């Protein structure tokens, strides 16, 4: 996905860009409102990540302007401020969601997806994988005449495989990618999700194979 990150703290911005880059996302960074507006005006982004405290103004003024300009790009606010006092104002001003720093990136991804799903799938989000259709925004897998709504972990897991067909992922690597907050996902749990995905993929040209002692990989027949 293509993100616009509006964040005045350079170190945090770099870390976030690094982190999102690890998942294959493309991130543009704007350190102030004016730059952000310039970026937003010329490039199409899937999502805008907006910090509230900015050197040349309040992130809320960006929201207002964004809404007035009828820009379609969803905005998730990343705030360091208290939820209680800021939440209402942020959502009322047109933010699609918000997260409180520090951000759990698994949660961020889940929220991004939920936002995009709410906005409705767009054509370019549709990818084909063998004879499967997949909308990464809505998380809907189309297998023949079946539309399967993947649940978050299944979705996340499927995306990992789908982005790199043929690549072998160890169980521990998968655990690492699926980890959310401090929760520990067992490697057994990975087996459970892989099992579910295999059921969804039955009858298609796509399958997930087990490489004993190494891990899993996605194969397209």
């Amino acid at each position, binding site marked *: 996905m293509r993100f616009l990150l509006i964040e005045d*703290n350079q*170190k*945090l911005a770099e*870390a*976030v860009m*690094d*982190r999102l880059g*690890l998942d294959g996302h493309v991130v543009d960074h704007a350190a102030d409102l004016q730059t952000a507006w310039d970026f937003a005006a010329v490039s199409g982004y899937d999502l805008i990540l907006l910090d509230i*405290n900015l050197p040349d103004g309040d992130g809320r003024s960006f929201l207002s302007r964004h809404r007035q300009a009828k820009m379609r790009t969803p905005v998730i606010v990343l705030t*360091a*401020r*208290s*939820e*209680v*006092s*800021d*939440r*209402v104002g942020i959502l009322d001003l047109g933010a699609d*969601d918000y997260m*409180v*720093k*520090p*951000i*759990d*990136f*698994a*949660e961020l991804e*889940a*929220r991004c*997806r*939920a936002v995009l799903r709410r906005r409705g799938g767009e054509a370019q989000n549709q990818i084909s994988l063998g004879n499967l259709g997949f909308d990464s925004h809505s998380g809907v897998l189309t297998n023949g005449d079946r539309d399967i709504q993947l*649940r*978050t*972990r299944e979705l*996340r897991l499927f995306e990992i495989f789908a982005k790199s067909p043929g690549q072998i992922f160890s169980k*521990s690597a998968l655990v*690492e990618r699926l*980890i*959310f*907050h*401090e*929760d520990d996902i067992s490697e057994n*749990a990975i087996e459970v999700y892989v099992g579910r995905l295999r059921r969804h993929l039955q009858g298609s040209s796509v399958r997930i194979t087990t490489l004993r002692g190494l891990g899993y990989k996605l194969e397209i027949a």
Partner: protein
Amino acid sequence: MSLLASAAVLAVAVYFVVMSVASQVAQQSQDNVLEASARSILDSARFVAGEISLDLPYSALSMLDGVVHERVFYAIRLEEEFLSGYRDLPRATGGKAGTHGFFSAAFLGDEVRIASVQRSVATDMGQRVLQVSVAQTRMGQTQALARISRTSMGIGFGFFLSSVLLAIVVARSTIRPLDRLTVSVSRRGPKDLRPVAAPVPKEMVPLVTSLNSLMKRLKKSLSRSEDFIAEAAHRVRTPLAIVRTKAEVARRRVQDPATRDALSEMIHAIDDSSRTAGQLLDHAMVTFRLDHLSEQDVDLPQLVAETVERQRPVSELKNIHLMTSVLEPWVLKGDPILLQNALLNVLDNAIKYAPDGAQVDIVVKARAGGAVLSVSDTGPGFPEDEMETLTGRFARGGNAGDVIGSGLGLTIAKEVIDAHGGDLNITNIAGAGGCVSFFFPLS
């Protein structure tokens, strides 16, 4: 009460003033008549053929007998020599010729007022002082004063009544704008610190001015403390965010399992402290808002649906299914932000503690006596031995320092629900799981 007392004092004062003026006037008029009588007698005195001749005018005495009959006495004396009238009538001592004097004395069984006038008469023995004293009982005066006493008591009482009435009317008209002011101020939301613009009588302008000045300062100090909290959060959270992000990136990049575990623990610790900081800040905010509880109409099922929807991405990450199987309509008066926060805290706990694949059902049921909002999960429920402890933590002002994580979340929820006149209950449903329910009584 002080109003009544001062009116009574004033009324008594009015009574005494009227009485004092009246008795002075009565005394004055009696003295005037007595003097006129005495003078008419004195004027009739002639020195003829070696002796004093007095043609006592009939009116001299009859004029003293009014509607109220009075006993009348007189004495005519030429210096020490008694000429006519009542020999024993007390006489004024001293005094020069041509002067007059009044005094009261007892005579023949009654209190009398005596007027004495005198003038010098040319006799064959030279100038001699002729003195005429006229006395009158004070029946009329007494009766008149009794009448005036009754009247002035009436006046005093009337004054009392009318001043009480007037005071009530004045107090009412003074209090009415005050009431309006009170209503307009107390109806305000907790954050409404605009100056009072309601029209008030000019006596109350200083009050309103100082009220407005207080609001201004309050607003300033509140926004300062809000700013402070926000700033504190910002200062803490931003570095935490940097560290956590970098740690996550590092964990993805390193291959050494020991280092990855260390990084995982670090992230874990950051999340822990972040959550605690968040809840402490939340708690501070909740406490502040509870003191200025706003009274909006809150659509409970809508609030629940929105809150659940917001938590859904997080729950799905944990493979926990949030359900809202029953959302019956209910509107209550309260602070939606606080209520949402309370529910968020409970949902947060449920998502945190429910096992993988669990269901959490959020239900709003409208009943005759009120509404129940319950959050129940299919998890193991609350540990029975901790139920007591959890409840114990709800006490407001409890040692928040010891409380981290879910405990504070429930404390916040409990405080919010209490402030809305409701109840928070924690139960384990046999064979199902834990259940946290809010009860909102019909207001």
